Each structure stands twice: as C-alpha cells, then as structure tokens.
C-alpha cells in the first residue's frame, strides 16, 4: 500500500468531506454557473468551503476541480484554462488543509460516453492526463476519479492519474437497476471493483447516486472481491423539489447513524456527496470517534 494511505488508515477509518457545489451555491454561485471557474474568480469562497470541511473534522478534503477536464471545459469555452483551473484548485485545498488534512484532488467524468463514439479513448486519456498532472503540480496528495458511470472511462482516468505517481482512488455511481446496485451501464460493484483495481487504482468505491443505506451492500460486495481499501461518499438521500428548491430529507444524524454499518461492510474512506454539508461531516466525525474508542 502507498505510504500516504497506510499512514492515513493507521488510526482506523478515514473521514473525507461532503458536497462542494451546494456549499458554493450557498456562497453565491449562480444557477448554471461553472463551479470550477471560481478557483480563479472567487478563490476566497472556495477556500471557505475547504476550510469548513477541515474545521468539521475531514482528514481528507477534495478540490473544486470536478469538471475541469478539457472535454467538459470545452462546453464552456474554457479549455484553454484547464491547467490553471486544476493547479489553482489543488493549491486552494492545500492551503485550507495545512497540516490537518490531506488533499485528494477530484477528477470527474468527461460527460461523454465512449461507447457512443462521440469521443475517442485517446482524447479521453489525454484530457485526464493533462488534468492529473496539473493537480499534482498544484500540490495534491492523491487523486480521486469520481462519479464515473462508464467503467472504461474510469479505467482510462485511473491509468492517466497513475502516471503522476500519486495514490489513486476510483469510484463509480451505482444508481441503476431496481436495487440501485448497477452503474448506468449495468456494471455490478464486483465487476467495477475488479476492473478498477486491475487498471491500477489504490482505493476503489462508490459515490453519489443514492443515500447511505445503499452503500452498505455495495461496499460488502466490493470487499468480497478485493483487498484494497474502499471509498464511500453517499448522498443525503435523493432530493425532493419544494417550491423549486431541492430538499434532501436525510439529516446529519440519520446519515451518521449508518456509519458503523458502513465500516462493518468494509468502507475505510467515508464522506458525503450531494446534499451533505460540514454538519454531516461533524456528525460523522462524532460517530467515527466513538467507533475508534470502542476498538
């Protein structure tokens, strides 16, 4: 295991962070505005979000670089800023983390399906390599390939990320099938974990797509086929629209109450995705601290 991961895991399960997009919106990010651009335009707000997670107890924080790959940036006419957005995003999280947390920099999907033929494997690999290298230059401690729907794309991202020499986490969205245990493309947790480890991921797992309860069987199933540490970042349930505003019904306490089960199922890196906030992380921290004391 990579020494960085070994050190983090030495004291038990590791607490990661929660959602960024909603936190930025609370600080004025407009609807339809591209969040990653705030690394350049409103760095102080991005720092605030990162600091809020460190203050809540995150041992690992991510970065505001989820959409900053060349293919997705092109849709916003921002592809010339790919390197700058990623470097700055990593540096901002590093600044907020100080000595208290590690920065696992976010690499999200390109938004295009490889199997549709709209984009080639080479274009996808190049885009991820450019992003991974810029994140490494910005000071990231590790890279997180997240919210992936297509295993092929995730594996290309893992291989690109590995070229930096940093540890690589890879996680997919399981939101399809009647039990929400398949990716959009029909891949099972077992098949995804196996493919991602084979591609070179140091940590594998799941994020987004559903509430925390669904992550328990997914982690259990991944744990049965691989020995690498598992990553789990669940949503605060699924949003309900109330007067045009999304409301997530899961409370921080509800979320935290399932953490012991998630740990039991094999998860080692635990945090939240859409709808979660520093309050969720603080509640999760209390639960994890209690668990550590028992052991």
């Amino acid at each position, binding site marked *: 295991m990579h020494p960085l991961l070994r050190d983090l895991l030495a004291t038990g399960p590791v607490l990661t962070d929660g959602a960024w997009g909603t936190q930025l919106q609370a600080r004025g990010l407009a*609807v*339809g505005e591209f969040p990653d651009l705030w690394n350049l335009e409103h760095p102080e707000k991005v720092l605030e979000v990162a600091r809020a997670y460190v203050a809540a107890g995150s041992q690992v924080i991510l970065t505001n670089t989820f959409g900053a790959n060349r293919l997705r940036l092109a849709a916003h006419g921002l592809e010339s800023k790919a390197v700058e957005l990623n470097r700055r995003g990593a540096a901002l999280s590093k600044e907020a983390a100080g000595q208290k947390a590690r920065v696992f920099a976010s690499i999200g999907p390109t938004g295009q399906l490889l*199997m549709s033929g709209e984009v080639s494997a080479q274009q996808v690999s190049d885009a991820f390599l450019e992003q991974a290298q810029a994140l490494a230059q910005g000071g990231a401690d590790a890279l997180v390939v997240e919210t992936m729907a297509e295993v092929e794309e995730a594996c290309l991202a893992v291989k690109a990320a590995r070229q930096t020499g940093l540890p690589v986490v890879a996680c997919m969205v399981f939101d399809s*099938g*009647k039990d929400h245990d398949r990716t*959009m493309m029909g891949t099972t947790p077992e098949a995804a974990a196996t493919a991602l480890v084979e591609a070179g991921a140091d940590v594998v797992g799941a994020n987004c797509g559903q509430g925390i309860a669904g992550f328990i069987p997914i982690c259990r199933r991944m744990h049965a086929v691989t020995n690498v540490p598992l990553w789990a970042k669940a949503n605060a349930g699924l*949003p309900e*629209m109330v007067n045009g505003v999304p409301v997530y019904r899961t409370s921080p306490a509800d979320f935290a109450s399932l953490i012991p089960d998630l740990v039991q199922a094999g998860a080692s890196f635990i945090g939240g995705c859409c709808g979660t906030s520093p309050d969720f992380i603080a509640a999760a921290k209390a639960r994890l601290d209690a668990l550590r004391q028992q052991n």
Partner: protein
Amino acid sequence: MPDLKLLYEAVVNGDAKASLAITQQALAEGVDPLILVNEHMVPAMDEVGRRFEANEFFVPELLIAARAMKASLEVIRPLLIARGDKPAGRVAIGTVKGDLHDIGKNLVASLLEGGGFEVIDLGVNVTPEKFIETVNLKQANIIAMSALLTTTMPAMKSTIEALKSAGVRDRVKVLIGGAPITQKYADEIGADGYSENAVGAVALAKKAVAT
C-alpha cells in the same frame, strides 16, 4: 424471402449489420416496409424495453438496439415518406438552458427514432425561444426536455411558460425527464408527461400523440 424473425432478433441483439441486411433483402423482395416496422422492429424494441425494465438490459444494450433499428429505418423511411406515410410524431428534444449534460437526452432521442418518431435534436443549453422556433418553423408536435441538475430544472417551468406566452402551448405535448425530475414536478409545472427512463419515454411519446 428472408426469415423476418431474424430481423426481430437482430434488433433485440443490437446487430445493426444483420438488421440492415435483412431489411434490404426483404425490401428487394417486395415486403411492405410498414410490415417490417410494425410487425418485427417495433415488437423487438418493445422486447428490449421489457428486458430493460427487468434489469436484464442496461444502457449499452439499449444503445446498440436503437442503432440496429436506426440502420434499418434509414432505408425504410425514404420509402414511407415517398408514399406519404407520416412518422409517429415530430419531436423537438433538448437539454434545457443552463444545462450541458446530454447522455440521457441522446439516449432518449435514439430510442424515439427507433420508435418511429422524427427527432429534431436541438442539443444542450436550449433556450425557450429555440423550442418555440422549432414548433413554429418545423411543426414539432412534441417537446422533450432534459435536465440533470436540480439547479437547471426550473428552466423546464420557464420554457412551458414561454410556450404559453408565444401561444403555441396547445400545439405540443411537453414531456420531461432527467435524474432530479419526478412525476410530482411534472404535475407542478404543467408538463404533459414524465418518464423516469428512456424506455418509458417512448411509450409516453406514443401515448401523447394518441390523445
């Protein structure tokens, strides 16, 4: 005369090459193109939909089945148009203003084509004005809107309001879908229908043009 059961199987299995070859052979031998569509290809897409609902098929299988259907339709459609047969309906589809996600929208578009609809794909970040223009200039009778983000779904409501202001709301059925969308939201904003997946969207569109 080719065995037309093989056409059904080619579509279900997503074998575009076979689907096209059987179609061409059947047409050359004088089989009515509508029989190919209605008695073999549409039932095949229904079976694909059934398997999707049953979790036997996922998005990749849907995509290749729709591709196989499309390969055959590309040779059949000109024949139907030449003799005056109308498509099931004309759909203007797009991801709403402010939203750049198009995987779901593209999937619905190809399944609608497979279901016999003429599809005008307006792309992503589609303004209400663009939808209205397509109703006016291209006589679309269905508008299909997609949104992936909770932050962009209000654009569906404003598009419906714009259709009303432009006086064309009664000429179209409005169908909506996307990860955060619910039936409740569709009712709230006065859409004519909602489907939680691409297969359901085809059934919904068929129902919309039948009423």
